[in-house]
């Protein structure tokens, strides 16, 4: 890890050092966000990390052309989401997905089959949502994002996010009943 950081530090010396430092800061603060976005689609740790990695690589390549750097997280979320969907379509044959219960509560070995079933049903219901509702409800329940933050990430008005969240919760209730 240290070698990689040193390699990056060597490559950033020069007039672009400030740009590279800016990117490094954003990489550190947005890595979990990108991973969780990918995981919400793929539900597979390794696949999610691969997709988030690819998203960061693309972000690095386009970072110089990104006019508004404050929109980096928004750009990253949308790119990661699209890449995850593409990855999912390309690997439909993968049936053995990582269990959500295993991913979130691995420490608790006393998880019951009932909980596993509930988690499976929850993700099945989320997958059944239209994409716009799906990404809104996922982002709203990720990292304590409020409506304004979700609106900024999706680059839509707050009212749009509110209506999408309302519709998504309504659909989820119907599907899970």
């Amino acid at each position: 890890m240290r070698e990689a950081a040193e390699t990056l530090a060597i490559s950033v010396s020069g007039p672009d050092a400030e740009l590279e430092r800016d990117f490094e800061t954003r990489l550190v603060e947005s890595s979990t966000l990108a991973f969780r976005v990918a995981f919400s689609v793929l539900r597979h740790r390794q696949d999610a990390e691969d997709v988030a990695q690819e998203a960061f690589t693309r972000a690095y390549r386009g970072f110089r052309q990104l006019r508004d750097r404050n929109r980096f997280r928004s750009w990253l979320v949308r790119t990661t989401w699209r890449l995850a969907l593409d990855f999912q379509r390309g690997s439909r044959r993968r049936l053995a997905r990582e269990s959500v219960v295993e991913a979130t509560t691995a420490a608790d070995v006393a998880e019951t089959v009932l909980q596993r079933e509930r988690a499976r049903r929850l993700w099945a219901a989320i997958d059944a949502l239209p994409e716009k509702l799906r990404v809104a409800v996922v982002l709203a329940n990720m990292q304590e994002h409020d409506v304004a933050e979700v609106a900024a990430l999706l680059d839509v008005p707050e009212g749009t996010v509110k209506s999408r969240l309302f519709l998504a919760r309504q659909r989820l209730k119907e599907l899970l009943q």
Partner: protein
Amino acid sequence: MTIDQELRAALSVEPSPEFVARVRTRIANQPQPRGWRIWWLAAPAAAAVVMLAALFVSRPATVVDSQGVPLLESRTLPAVMAPNVAAPKLQVHEPATPQVARAKPESEVMIDRAEANALRRLVFGPPLNIDQPYVGTTLAAIEITPLAIEPLPIGSEGVRQ
């Protein structure tokens, strides 16, 4: 447990500790960002365009008819010559662009020597005082001799001549 709570719990996953380091390694192995590559490609392309434009501008334009014979050659004008009244004959200046092929040699223009000299005096000779009014002979000074018309010889009537 509400749906939101379940979802929040399901999404509270963390990437592996090596994730950020792996991203850094991958970025470090990447070539330079696109901006650099574009500039490296754009600079030689711009230089090539400038050279082609300069070449195009410096080449003389030649109008060619359907048979490939140049109809109009662009020639550079000859340098301004000093008056050379005593030159025995007209000089023909060769075009400054010898790479333009001629279709056939031009025929020489035959000019009378006196006319050529007069033309030469007119062009290269001393300037005429055209600003001064014309001073010539007046009409009164012209002497006009009266016409003498001799009568026609008339023979006798009825006589054949």
